């Protein structure tokens, strides 16, 4: 993994819009020109969710599809931090550091990219899709538990031609996103492929297996508890696949070559 190639920016963004996508999924647009302008798919912002120190730590959130000076965060309300965030109103100030970490590498010119997302893991891939701006042909596969757990709305699914799978069949293909991936790999078997994945660890494990066994290069984005977000505290370790210690997700990731990390230990999701 390369060393962090960008300089973190501290910016106080202004909330432009907050809306609920479904169930506990929220979509927030923030005016944050410096960070929005510098972000690449796979990077994240470290967000201070309260004005005081309760909760104490910032929350890492992937940079979603930016548009000009506007940053988009899409998140699931999980605990106290994301709940506070969902309660923000237009005009509220949000203290953020970003863009942090290493982005996904761009596909090489002869590679056909497949974006493989599980649940809320589609956020960095939406930005990736955005970056392709119709100029790069690609697939976007998204798995979810059920239609009640939709993380992108129907308009966007249609616009981005996202292929959906759901565990209960309530929307799209009845099965996992890995099934979809395998089908596509079979269909596309004469092309050079590169896979970009983000989602829960078990999904990433399957993704890694599928790609490694077919010698397809795959990049995945990881989540792990963080302190500083800037490579100073070593809180965000993920074991290296070679057994030689750890990478730091905030500095060496969050996007990693799938073969470089050990997904059996560590990480939470």
């Amino acid at each position, binding site marked *: 993994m390369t060393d962090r190639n960008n300089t973190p920016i501290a910016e106080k963004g202004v909330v432009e819009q907050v809306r609920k996508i479904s169930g506990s999924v929220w979509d927030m647009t923030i005016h944050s020109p410096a960070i929005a302008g510098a972000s690449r798919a796979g990077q994240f912002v470290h967000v201070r969710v309260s004005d005081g120190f309760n909760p104490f730590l*910032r929350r890492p959130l992937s940079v979603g599809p930016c548009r000009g000076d506007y940053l988009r965060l899409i998140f699931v309300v999980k605990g106290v931090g994301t709940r506070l965030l969902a309660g923000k109103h237009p005009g509220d100030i949000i203290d953020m550091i970003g863009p942090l970490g290493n982005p996904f590498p761009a596909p090489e010119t002869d590679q056909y990219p497949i974006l493989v997302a599980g649940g809320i893991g589609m956020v960095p891939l939406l930005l990736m899709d955005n970056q392709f701006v119709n100029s790069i042909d690609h697939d976007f596969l998204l798995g979810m538990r059920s239609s009640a757990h939709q993380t992108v709305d129907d308009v966007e699914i249609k616009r981005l031609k996202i292929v959906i799978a759901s565990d209960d069949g309530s929307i799209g293909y009845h099965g996992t996103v890995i099934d979809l991936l395998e089908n596509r790999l079979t269909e596309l078997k004469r092309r050079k492929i590169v896979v970009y994945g983000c989602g829960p660890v078990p999904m990433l494990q399957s993704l890694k297996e599928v790609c490694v066994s077919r010698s397809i290069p795959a990049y995945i984005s990881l989540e792990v*508890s963080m302190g500083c977000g800037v490579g100073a*505290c070593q809180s965000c370790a993920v074991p290296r696949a070679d057994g030689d210690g750890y990478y730091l997700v905030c500095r060496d990731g969050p996007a990693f070559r799938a073969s470089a990390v050990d997904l059996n230990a560590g990480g939470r999701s």
Partner: protein
Amino acid sequence: MRVDTSIRMGRLDLQTPLLTGSGTFGYGDEFRSLVDYSRFGGVVTKSISLEPRPGNPPPRICETSAGGIINSIGLANLGVDGFIAGKAGVLPVDETKLFVSVVGDSVEEFVAVVERLEGVAGISGYELNVSCPNVRRGGLDLGGDRDAVAAVVSEVRSVTGRFMSVKLTPHYAVIGPVAEAAVRAGADAFTLTNTLSGMVVDAESRKPLLGNVTGGYSGPPLKPVALAKVWQAAQVVDVPIWASGGIINGIDGIEFMLAGASGLQLGSVLFADYDAPVRILEEMIEYCVRHGVDRLSDLIGRLEV
């Protein structure tokens, strides 16, 4: 009214009492684009050992219900040679003073690390970490043993003339004897305190939240404990004390100075608020103005008991 924020500590002059807490500010360069280094009297690096250490299995950090955090980094660090090779050129020695935190499993390891660092220019001193709750591998039981602490201090003293603070654990019921022994052995200062040993359990999954089960408990809940240790030590030794534990605002800083501290380490707070050094210094100056205090250092040890 102008308030003088400089602090004289034994042989050292610091531009402000603010320091960084070891391990929360990396090797001193990671925060370059975010933090105003000139507000710091000094920066203390991550603890450095002789060999590189990989650290503990993840997760390595979590929050506690009472508003603190627990980490189990396990002293992951570059090792002294890696530090010298990779970081010596980028250390923030122009804007502030640099203190290198040193850790070891044996007296010899402490000495070996310091010996190598003696060759690096720009280091103002050391902080000897004899108190990490996350590592304990036979050899030294530094977390409680007065003689072991004194041995580390006197052996390190024999290889350096630089300033040397000794960072102690809050897990002493009585801190006096170990503090006195460390001063006799040549300590120039104390850092009080390191983290408490703590742990968080998730009842739903029946799992600990840290890969290493237990870790070091820091942030606001630690403040009353660190304050007590600073005050207790200030009653028995006459060297400068660097406070560490739960400082998140200027009033916290004033409280520690009243209790006897002349240095104030910002640790966990930096994760939440990168602007903390600027804000905290302002809040302390505001307090001084309100109370007609010209020099911050006039507050040291002025608790009215």
